[in-house]
């Protein structure tokens, strides 16, 4: 039996798609926070001078890529953690007794989770454009898709790693509140990282989303703090490490 079973991967991906388009209320619910952040912060700080934002850059241009990063962070972490639901409702057993390698299961789930996260990120791009976001050409847009894949895969894998270590759903809100929120707030999605005090800034530099948001900003509006190649390198490395850890912990987790 081959280690990678494409048909099974497709099956798992398709399941995520069907669920995504079926659970419209959940999608709307998960899109509401980033939309409100974008709308209210975008409007509220429109005419304010935010220190640290480069000259000539509107706050919406600064904010929108950050909010897309936030959307990807939340939805892909959630997708990774959704193994908990499958375990709770028994569906995980159906997946685990199938003659399919654990690696194929991880790839299929991740592909599904990342696709749905990207769709949500792209949906949030629309109100951004309406509010005045200027996208820096088609090549910049395509590059931003690559950053979205990397952000989605990284946090999907981290979610999967946590879910593999948790026995039940009680840890879910802990992960969301004590990991995901700090990652979001430290990433420079809402304000430049350099505005943070010296003692806090190193944490920002340890946050993978910092490079994701910076990369999205660089590719979408053409202004970034780090060189784009550097963002890409760091994020690719983190993504790879997270994927390996997530797959390893999932493989080792109890089915039952």
């Amino acid at each position: 039996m081959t280690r990678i079973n494409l048909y099974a991967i497709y099956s798992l991906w398709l399941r995520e798609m069907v669920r995504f388009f079926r659970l419209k209320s959940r999608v709307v619910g998960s899109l509401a926070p980033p939309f409100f952040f974008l709308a209210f912060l975008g409007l509220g700080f429109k005419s304010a001078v935010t220190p640290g934002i480069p000259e000539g850059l509107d706050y919406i241009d600064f904010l929108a890529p950050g909010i897309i990063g936030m959307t990807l962070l939340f939805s892909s972490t959630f997708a990774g953690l959704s193994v908990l639901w499958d375990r709770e409702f028994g569906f995980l057993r159906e997946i685990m007794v199938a003659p399919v390698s654990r690696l194929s299961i991880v790839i299929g789930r991740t592909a599904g989770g990342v696709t749905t996260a990207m769709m949500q990120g792209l949906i949030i791009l629309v109100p951004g454009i309406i509010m005045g976001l200027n996208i820096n050409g088609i090549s910049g847009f395509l590059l931003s898709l690559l950053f979205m894949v990397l952000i989605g895969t990284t946090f999907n894998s981290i979610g999967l790693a946590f879910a593999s270590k948790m026995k039940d759903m009680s840890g879910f809100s802990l992960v969301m509140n004590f990991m995901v929120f700090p990652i979001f707030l430290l990433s420079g999605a809402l304000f430049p990282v350099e505005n943070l005090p010296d003692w806090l800034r190193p944490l920002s530099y340890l946050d993978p989303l910092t490079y994701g948001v910076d990369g999205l900003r660089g590719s979408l509006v053409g202004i970034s703090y780090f060189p784009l190649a550097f963002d890409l390198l760091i994020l690719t490395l983190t993504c790879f490490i997270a994927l390996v850890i997530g797959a390893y912990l999932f493989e080792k987790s109890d089915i039952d």
Partner: protein
Amino acid sequence: MDLAAISTSGLIMKFNGFTAVDGVDLQIGRGELFGLLGPNGAGKSTIIKMLTTMIRPTSGGAQVWGHDIYLERDAVRSSIGVVFQDPSVDSQLSGKENLDFHGRMYGMNKNMRQRRIAEVLDLVDLTDKADILMEDYSGGMQRRLEIARGLMHHPHVLFLDEPTLGLDAQTRRHIWDYILKMNREEGVTVILTTHYMEEADYLCERVAIIDQGSIVALDTPENLKDLIGADIITLNVDDDCVDELGEVISEFIWVSSVDTVENAVIISVDHGESRIPDIVLRACRAGMKIKSVSMHEPTLEDVFLRFTGKKIREFESEGAGKMAAVQSRMRTRRH
């Protein structure tokens, strides 16, 4: 050559020092409908989990359809279908989508899936419910769909872990008929676990009675019941004279065995109805007061009692009260 569907030797499973399965040796033939009967916590589900590669045994070996459960896990998984004790469907998908997902996971192409989905849905009478979301299925319909799904990829061996747990008597009957039908029509080997005596008796060609992780008896239901004798007479008396009465009764040469539990003496005899007067008379002479007398043909419950000294129902906890009620309703119906 006639290979076994399942063969195990010295299968042991320990959880933190607690031995859930204690040296199980089983030989189950191809095409057989085999039952593991025992109370909750006897180790039935643990045996199933080991044979379906969900957990690795502490020690011992097993082959499923000729494949080693340690070395050929994927080959084992391809040979089996499993219907778990707890629900294991995606409630956001329709019945058909759940089956479709399953077929793809087992590498079935589109034509095969379409044909097979129609077949298995027809087998469990869910054809007209195919496009309804699982969350709108009743418990019985969901179980039927899971049975259909277990059969979908033409497994050689189908494991059913407590297939009718928590279902009402009528639905249970239907599920039994489906299980018999698929064993006969599809020729699939079926291994089911249950703690309902009627279920094992009605369905299984052979039954292994399991208690505390070990097989205490294994034979056809008929042979097992023959061990007990022709009739079972139960005398309900006061606690304090149970043992004494048991001794008195066992003096009759025509009594094949006497068991005592709590406040009852259980006697197995041939021609029970003609022995009741003698028994009652003897008890009265010995000065013991009998509260009630009842007689029934042996059931697997009596077999279990004989081999373990316990009643299966004694294991039912408070939480399972509802199930016990269903069970006793069924009992009244059958007799």
